[in-house]
């Protein structure tokens, strides 16, 4: 196996997890799976950015409460988000007094943060670590697109940024009845020249294909060895492209076992989200709720979660840059 694959010897466990989402997400098909739905997108605060920090703060608070562990006992927190300089994470975390590692992987941040936390725990540097992430439709629109009240139209390929935050507490001891982290794969930046910022799924699909194929190849496994392969979040267009790419380039067919968290989050037509959900909070909250619930509940035993990110900035498309994609993967199991 190359250095891209990390084999976690101690099988770090996710001993506590929390997902907090907004109203629209709460009305989606997974609404009942989340720990908390905050109806007010503004959270009673003055700015969208402060509201996003509040989401992340709430998720971290919940993860501590659910584990019954005080913040002082946590050795480190790995977190990131989409807002400039990752302020949503920094401001959300500042009151906890936990050593903070700010990381950025665009929408792949959820898995990237988990890989980092798991690695620190597995190597014995930490006993207890938290990974967290957040995104907010309104703060993302403001930074990357148009003001909220601007009367523009979204093309069918556009995705809807999820308002939500997730947090996972990772322990160095393998524990029963908790999802365990077996392996991870670090993404390579893949840029196939897509310049349309309204078609992120297309920009990220090649990176996801590269990560999934490399993982299968290097671990000597086939899609049938996994109960599910989740991507987050390629949406409708990106998911189609991913399956086509894997089949065409690598002769791998994952269609039977693939789902995308961007497609799971909303009722696509009814909730008018076009190609599906996106944002750090999408893969994070679905992984922390539905996917891990199914692992603990015995419905799923071994799942590969591949979070994808589009590494663009608000100005890079105007400078003629294409959109580089990245995809980090993590292998979760029930440890049985």
């Amino acid at each position, binding site marked *: 196996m190359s250095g891209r694959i990390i084999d976690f010897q101690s099988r770090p466990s996710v001993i506590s997890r929390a997902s907090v989402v907004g109203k629209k997400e709460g009305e989606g098909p997974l609404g009942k799976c989340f720990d908390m739905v905050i109806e007010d997108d503004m959270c009673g605060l003055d700015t969208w950015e402060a509201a996003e920090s509040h989401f992340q703060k709430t998720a971290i608070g919940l993860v501590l409460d659910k584990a019954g562990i005080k913040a002082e006992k946590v050795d480190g927190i790995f977190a990131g988000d989409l807002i400039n300089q990752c302020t949503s994470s920094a401001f959300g975390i500042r009151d906890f007094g936990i050593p903070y590692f700010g990381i950025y992987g665009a929408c792949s941040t959820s898995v990237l943060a988990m890989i980092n936390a798991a690695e620190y725990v597995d190597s014995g540097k930490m006993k207890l670590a938290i990974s967290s992430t957040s995104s907010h439709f309104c703060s993302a629109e403001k930074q990357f697109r148009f*003001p*909220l*009240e601007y009367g523009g139209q979204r093309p069918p390929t556009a995705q809807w940024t999820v308002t939500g935050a997730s947090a996972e507490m990772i322990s160095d001891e393998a524990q029963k009845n908790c999802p365990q982290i077996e392996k991870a794969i670090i993404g390579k930046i893949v840029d*196939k020249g*897509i310049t349309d910022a309204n078609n992120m799924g297309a920009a990220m699909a090649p990176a996801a294909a590269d990560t999934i194929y490399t993982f299968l190849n290097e671990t000597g496994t086939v899609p049938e060895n996994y109960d599910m392969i989740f991507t987050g979040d390629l949406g409708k267009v990106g998911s189609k492209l991913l399956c*086509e790419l894997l089949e065409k380039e690598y002769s791998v067919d994952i269609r039977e076992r693939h789902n995308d968290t961007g497609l799971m989050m909303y009722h696509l037509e009814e909730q008018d989200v076009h190609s599906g959900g996106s944002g750090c909070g999408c893969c994070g909250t679905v992984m922390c709720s539905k996917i891990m619930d199914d692992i603990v509940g015995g419905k799923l035993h071994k799942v590969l979660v591949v979070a994808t990110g589009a590494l663009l900035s608000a100005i890079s498309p105007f400078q003629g840059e294409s959109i580089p994609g990245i995809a980090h993967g993590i292998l979760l199991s029930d440890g049985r």
Partner: protein
Amino acid sequence: MNISDKQYGEMVKKASPGSPMLIDCTKAFLIGGAICCFGQLLFYIYSKSGMSTDESRTLVSVSLIVLTAILTGIGVFDKIAKHAGAGTIVPITGFANSVVSPALEFKSEGFIMGTGASIFKIAGPVILYGTTAASLYGLIYFIVEKVMGK
């Protein structure tokens, strides 16, 4: 990955659904047309109430701008515009919305660095190139008139 950027671009084009042109154009035509009819109605009302043609025309624009600003402020305009597309962008309603929406959005950064600095974020290019084009046209018109006048 062996696939070239060009080949992948073709794949993306095939996989990406286009906007439903016929529905979009019909909605734009109907809603845009309705806004224009409404403007014409206002013009009749203003003219009948004793205002001159010039005054009535100006008042129609002002009325549509104020109405758009209110609808933008109460969060209704973007819901109409989502369906109307060019139907709401092309009339003066689009211009009003493109000024009011950033004014609201960037209020959180204060009246100077927020609203003041960002109010023309969307309308800026229209204002800049619109006034430049108008000035150039005026200059050409002036020169032509001078020459022809001789």
